[in-house]
């Protein structure tokens, strides 16, 4: 049931934005200033650019938390969206505060790929697995971000712990062999996914390390 309140009686929430990673789209905001301790609740609506009206998100009506998962409502990533939130406390509520236009296809952060490392004396093989798109239910079939961005690239950074040197390579395929390495040396790798379009935030993978094998020829002497 919509709560009747005096609009503008409260300051607006601030810093409203979409946090989007692999098409999981979370609306988040900061509480209005000056209301510490007050039991403020929030109500969210969203709008599909080009459509006719604002739509309610029933799970985000009169909520205490300062975030709302709009992944389902914004799952058509080739459309664009707006969202807005207002604060409510007792019989007062703020005016709406609105996001800019949100375009998941160009703005979602691409998560890191999966990384599998194997090694011999002088080389390391790296096998990358593209990150998966957010899915509504765990049992839904998986969609790789590669299927959305066919020209997905990866920036692979390699760190030689002995020489303290780091170098990186930009690859498009999913297997990479690093050759001419030093035997019996610990190398650490982390990878960043790069999607086409304007620059966007990206999440580097966890660092993974592997030691090249001892040089067998010197071992036999």
């Amino acid at each position, binding site marked *: 049931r919509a709560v009747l309140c005096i609009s503008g009686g409260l300051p607006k929430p601030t810093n409203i934005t979409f946090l989007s990673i692999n098409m999981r789209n979370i609306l988040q905001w900061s509480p209005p200033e000056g209301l510490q301790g007050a039991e403020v609740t929030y109500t969210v609506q969203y709008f599909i*650019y*080009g459509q*006719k*009206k604002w739509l309610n998100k029933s799970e985000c009506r009169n909520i205490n938390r300062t975030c709302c998962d709009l992944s389902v409502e914004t799952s058509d990533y080739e459309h664009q969206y707006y969202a807005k939130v207002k604060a409510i406390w007792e019989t007062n509520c703020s005016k709406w505060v609105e996001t800019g236009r949100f375009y998941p296809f160009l703005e979602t952060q691409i998560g890191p790929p999966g990384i599998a490392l194997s090694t011999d004396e002088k080389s390391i093989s790296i096998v990358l697995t593209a990150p998966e798109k957010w899915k509504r239910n765990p049992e839904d079939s998986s969609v790789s971000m590669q299927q959305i961005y*066919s*020209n997905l690239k990866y920036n692979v950074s390699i760190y030689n712990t002995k020489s303290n040197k780091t170098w990186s390579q930009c690859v498009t395929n999913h297997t990479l062999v690093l050759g001419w390495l030093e035997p019996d040396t610990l190398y650490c790798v982390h990878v960043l996914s790069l999607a*086409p*379009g*304007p*620059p966007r935030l990206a999440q580097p993978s966890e660092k993974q390390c592997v030691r090249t094998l001892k040089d067998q020829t010197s071992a036999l002497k």
Partner: protein
Amino acid sequence: GLRRCLISMDIHHIEEAFQEIKKTIQAKDTFQNVTILSTSETLHSIKPLDVCCMTKNLLAFYVDKVFKDHRELNPQILRKISSIANSFLYMQKALQQCQEQMQCHCRDEATNATRIIHDNYDQLEVRSAAIKSLGELDVFLAWIDKNHQGTSA
């Protein structure tokens, strides 16, 4: 021969130029319930065979209509828009060669899709239509990026 005529240029500096003015431009577009390009039935239904013609038509739409109809007071934004417009002129020249080699054939699908876009534009007051079309440049650039992948850096 080439199934479609690819633009061999780097889209990224256009995307970066637009990225810097996008929030300001889109904030001026107050008609959220209307789109010019963004009806996904229009651009996303374009087949590879029609990519060249559609690209040519949309470049002309922006160069001959949108950039001309738009009035901009902010010098920084104006500079970015001019840079984008110049890049579009360059892309038009690049496509001209395809035209001469008859690889940029326009079928009904591309012609109809172009007409929808012009109709959407003409339904709005001209300044509002221009600002809305500018605000949707990211849609056009993403479409170019996706359909002219063979050549972008």
